[in-house]
């Protein structure tokens, strides 16, 4: 690595750390109901929506009602995406005259975009009409991210409210997330992207006659508007098959920087917003540091691995699956960023990365995407680990643990464990089943340990709602479409519903003032135990599987083996 490589990494981290606190403050203002500089511009839109939909902003919901509203709203999103796909042949804005999507694939895609996973078993440019992409997928990119934000808001209210029966109003939280945060940021990013060369048009694909006379059909579409929210909302589903490696989604190093920054921006800011709203700024800062260090550790190991000599192929620099405008460093940075978050877009093909770099990407998702993580999802996922940490610390000293003035008891811990182990179980069970089914094994593109990695990555990505892939795996089969679809669905709600249950249970508790025996959550000791808890849960669950996939592939590669 050169000075130039380090400079790019440092710029990324510095800009992220500089932008997160002010955006966090802004978000805390929005969700705290305070007036901001954007209210004169779009405040009317919120009032209009509330009036049109009959939303009473003073109405409060208990956790069950909040969950019901969330689930109904998500079901509608699912239904809209599936219907658009099944009927797109007869609907407008389909200049390529693409046919209707087969049911199993339509199911997979609808679940995928509803759950903020954005796993793609299809190639966008040859499967989905402009209408389906816009009216189905772009909308879900916004709404699934807003759903994530609503859950963390409910959880924060659970922490700060005392002996309360309610945790907020889902409609209000959702509307504000879209109008004041996701939409304005998307407008800015989309225009930056168009300025860099990302296409935005309703014109049909163009047939170009190349210099040597070969005809090349070049796909177009309303891409910039979708790519902007796909990154900001940690969705990650590409308009085109090559995702953010496609020159029309990510044409320059500058667009690459803006997009990779957008992936972590809102989630990083949410940590600070949490600190402000829960009146626990120092605690939030400690969580931010833990996230940043885990991010840096993954990045370092991944870069080290990718820059090492590959004896199997006999090459020092492996550029397979990488684009020249980004180079090795930016490709690795993106692979870490996209899996720390629940984004899953790629600017280089993860399957072609060195074994440990691909393994880090997988492990990031396995940890629960809590290193900044998905919009909302990263923070509520992290809070589940915080509860677990506080509980473990309480066990060690034999005292009922408290967290930010609330006693943590059996119910909260049960729910946190359900959420954490639920996703982990999905990954292990799904992968195990696929490993013994001939129909599932027929989809593998690579042999040897890399083949196992393809399967493991697929179920990790689906259950973790990430969406990236070792894309050699042919996932567009009935087995994978349905199995991965179910993994995404369960993986999303097995975390959301317990999180809301915790919110309800915490809100109902009375305030327990901190005493001398309270385990402090705003110092280095807490940071160390938190990081250890996350790593131990992740490592204990996944080490055996990882050692049969990326880890053994690494050692066999060092010995020069090929498969």
């Amino acid at each position, binding site marked *: 690595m050169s000075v130039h490589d380090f400079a790019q990494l440092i710029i990324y981290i510095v800009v992220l750390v500089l932008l997160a606190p002010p955006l966090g403050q802004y978000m805390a203002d929005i969700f705290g109901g305070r007036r901001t500089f954007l209210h004169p511009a779009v405040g009317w839109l919120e009032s209009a929506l509330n009036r049109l939909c009959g939303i009473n902003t003073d109405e409060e919901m208990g956790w069950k009602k909040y969950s019901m509203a969330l689930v109904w709203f998500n079901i509608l999103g699912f239904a809209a995406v599936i219907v658009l796909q099944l009927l797109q042949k007869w609907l407008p804005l389909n200049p390529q005259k693409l046919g209707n999507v087969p049911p199993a694939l339509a199911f997979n895609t609808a679940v995928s975009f509803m759950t903020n996973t954005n796993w793609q078993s299809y190639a966008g440019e*040859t499967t989905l009409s402009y209408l389906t992409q816009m009216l189905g997928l*772009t909308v879900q990119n916004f709404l699934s991210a807003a759903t994530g934000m609503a859950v963390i808001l409910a959880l924060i209210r659970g922490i700060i409210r005392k002996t309360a029966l309610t945790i907020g109003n889902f409609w209000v939280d959702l509307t504000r997330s879209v109008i004041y945060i996701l939409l304005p940021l998307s407008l800015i990013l989309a225009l930056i992207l168009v300025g860099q060369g990302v296409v935005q048009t309703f014109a049909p694909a163009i047939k170009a006659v190349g210099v040597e006379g070969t005809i090349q059909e070049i796909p177009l579409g309303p891409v910039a508007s979708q790519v902007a929210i796909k990154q900001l909302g940690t969705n990650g589903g590409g308009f085109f098959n090559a995702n953010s490696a496609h020159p029309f989604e990510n*044409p320059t190093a500058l667009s690459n920087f803006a997009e990779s920054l957008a992936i972590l921006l809102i989630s990083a800011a949410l940590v600070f917003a949490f600190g402000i709203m829960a009146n626990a700024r120092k605690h939030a800062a400690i969580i931010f540091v833990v996230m940043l260090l885990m991010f840096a550790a993954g990045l370092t190991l991944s870069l080290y691995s990718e820059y090492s000599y590959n004896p199997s192929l006999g*090459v020092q620099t492996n550029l397979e699956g990488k684009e020249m405008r980004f180079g090795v460093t930016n490709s690795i940075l993106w692979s870490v960023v996209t899996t720390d978050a629940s984004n899953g877009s790629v600017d280089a093909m993860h399957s072609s990365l060195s074994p440990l770099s691909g393994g880090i990407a997988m492990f990031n998702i396995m940890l629960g995407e809590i290193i900044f993580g998905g919009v909302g999802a990263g923070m509520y996922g992290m809070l589940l680990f915080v509860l677990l940490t506080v509980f473990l610390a309480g066990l060690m000293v034999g005292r009922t643990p408290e967290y930010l003035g609330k006693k943590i008891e059996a119910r909260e811990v049960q729910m946190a464990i359900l959420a954490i182990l639920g996703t982990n179980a999905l990954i292990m069970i799904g992968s195990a089943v696929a490993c013994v089914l001939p129909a599932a094994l027929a989809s593998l593109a690579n042999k040897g340990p890399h083949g196992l990695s393809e399967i493991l990555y697929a179920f990790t990505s689906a259950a973790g709602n990430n969406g990236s892939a070792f894309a050699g795996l042919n996932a567009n089969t009935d087995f994978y479409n349905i199995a991965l679809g179910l993994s995404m669905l369960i993986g999303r709600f097995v975390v959301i519903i317990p999180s809301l249950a915790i919110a309800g249970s915490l809100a109902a508790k009375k305030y327990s003032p901190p005493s001398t025996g309270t385990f402090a959550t705003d110092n280095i000791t807490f940071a160390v135990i938190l990081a250890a808890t996350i790593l131990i849960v992740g490592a204990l669950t996944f080490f055996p599987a990882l050692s049969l996939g990326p880890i053994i592939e690494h050692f066999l590669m060092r010995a020069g083996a090929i498969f």
Partner: protein
Amino acid sequence: MKTVLTSIKLFLFMTILTGLLYPLFITGIAKVFFSEKAGGSMIKQNGIIIGSELIGQNFSEPQYFWPRPSATNYNAMPSGGSNLGPTSAELKKEIENRRKQLISANGGNENIPADLLFGSASGLDPDISPQAARYQVDRILAARDLDHSLKTLLLNLIDEHIERPDLGVLGEPRINVLKLNLALDSLLKVRK
């Protein structure tokens, strides 16, 4: 029941806002301020679109600079990479074949830049490294029956076409193959 009703209403309005008004608004602004870029940065010659500046196209004739290998052979419908892993025997064989072909096409020069051996992520990478362009100069001179004294001319052309990292630091130095080949054609046309 009220929950369902509110759901339906809010979902409809959100769909109109984020799925219709937002993309239309961006399309409108793009049309006014970035018309060519929003339309795909197409390059025309004599009124015919010969490709996009951003989308790589295949060159296999010896008198042109060649792009990187592509898993889709520069077919953009759909895009994609090989997804072959770091211990793939298939990838190893492909690299060997490419190496042999490049050496024999380029006068036995074994100093092949890595980007000419490995396929890109999109299969549509428009760029190659400056080294990869320089590597091909002798072949192009020979294929066009040009005197070896013109080599500096071509090397200068390559240098002029190096795109530096954005803002001086982001990304890698690179050369757009289509633009370089068009410049090559027009340069030699002028000289004739």
